[in-house]
């Protein structure tokens, strides 16, 4: 296992309490609680439509939760109290504390690989071009893509795009990384290169929440696994328990179906 030593002893970095998100009558997330320690990797699994992506998007308020509480570091947001929910530039600043990687990569289509990594540093953090370029270059090297620096996203393979997207997410030195089914849109032979990068990040001590269908990755890299169904956490625990010896019937049948495929 690649879990870092401080994973269990570390301070609590992120805490969610009774988080709910509904769209009209549809409740996508129905009261979710979770705490993530510094350096911990939390994997979220579950059938499609179970609310795991919505949950992730609630964490950095890409979707505003309907109610519940979120704490990151020393800042607490109570979504039932309007005034505690950041908006405008405070919301933008809040979001920059997270790095997010998406299923469809979503690299900025008009910018080259290195510009994609730089733009957050120059626009959001107002660093100089030279400074941003130097750091962007070292991030591209870290994901093994230094030679693609001047290519546009459409000139890169899916796996390369996703690795650039990871470099972009790392650029602002986020406190927590959010991965939203980042290998689901990739051809099978490209999945490995992306998982390798995530594996390396985890062993370097990054705090990560990973929504995924890659059970082997969850088993090997995660410190904690949540199994979600219908917007709720059905079972959670260390990967050896949830993935190898699940107690809940729903978890069992989900995993059984999964292993058959």
């Amino acid at each position, binding site marked *: 296992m690649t879990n870092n030593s401080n994973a269990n002893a570390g301070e609590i970095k992120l805490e969610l309490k009774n988080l709910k998100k509904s769209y009209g009558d549809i409740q996508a997330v129905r009261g979710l609680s979770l705490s993530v320690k510094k350096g911990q990797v939390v994997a979220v699994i579950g059938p499609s439509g179970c609310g795991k992506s919505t949950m992730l998007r609630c964490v950095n308020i890409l979707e505003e939760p309907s109610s519940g509480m979120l704490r990151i570091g020393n800042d607490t947001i109570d979504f039932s109290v309007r005034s505690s929910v950041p908006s405008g530039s405070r919301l933008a600043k809040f979001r920059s504390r997270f790095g997010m990687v998406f299923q469809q990569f979503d690299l*900025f289509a008009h910018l080259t690989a290195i510009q994609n990594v730089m733009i957050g540093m120059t626009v959001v953090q107002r660093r100089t071009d030279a400074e941003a370029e130097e750091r962007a270059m070292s991030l591209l090297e870290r994901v093994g893509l230094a030679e693609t620096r001047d290519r546009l996203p459409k000139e890169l393979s899916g796996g390369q795009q996703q690795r650039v997207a990871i470099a972009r997410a790392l650029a602002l030195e986020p406190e927590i990384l959010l991965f939203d089914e980042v290998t689901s849109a990739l051809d099978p032979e490209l999945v490995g290169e992306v998982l390798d990068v995530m594996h390396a990040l985890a062993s370097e001590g990054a705090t990560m929440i990973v929504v995924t269908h890659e059970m082997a990755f969850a088993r090997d890299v995660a410190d904690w696994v949540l199994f979600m169904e219908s917007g709720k956490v059905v079972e959670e625990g260390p990967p050896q328990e949830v993935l190898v010896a699940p107690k809940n019937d729903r978890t069992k049948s989900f995993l059984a179906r999964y292993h058959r495929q």
Partner: protein
Amino acid sequence: MNYNWDFFFVIAGYENWWIKGLLVTIAYAVGTVIGGLILGVICGTLLLANRIWLTVPIHMYVELFRCTPVLVQIVWFFFALPILIQVQLPAWLAAGVGLTLYMGCFATEIFRGGIISIDKGQWQAARAIGMTYVQMMRHIILPQAIRRMIPPFVNQSVIQFKNTALLYVVAVPDLMYTGYLVVADTYRPLEVYTGVAVAYFVLLYPLTQWGKRLEARGDK
């Protein structure tokens, strides 16, 4: 047919009329395209704000001007509006307002359409790295959207250029109305209107070719 073409007859002595007519036409085309563009950017931006008290009146404006002939609009502003507001608008203003509002409604749709055509993923990725709305628009959305807006905007400008010929009905001395005056003086409609058509063609052909090139580039 034995017609004696004589272009010299309809030009000589009328040079100043023709030059003025040409300049009036170009000035109206350029002026109303720019005015319409500004109007379109403003209305298009307000539509994106998604406030119902803004979107309803703007949609009403757009549909009203899109679904009535611009000829009717110019005539209405010149002959009908003055009765309502008890002020006679000069012809140049009534026609300019009509043409600008007409261009503006198409520019609104082009602007809004360009923005909302940008993939949702681009918006969420920009938000996720902590960009404010203004930063996202300036660095991510507009650079991509403007590329898509240019071809339809050039095409609409070509149509707008041709529509300036309608200035004729309120006696603004553009190319078309100048032609009418010269015909009244010379009784030579064949040379005059052929010449007018050629002048429009020479002005617009390069513009349409440019529009085609931009469209082809946008497809890549």
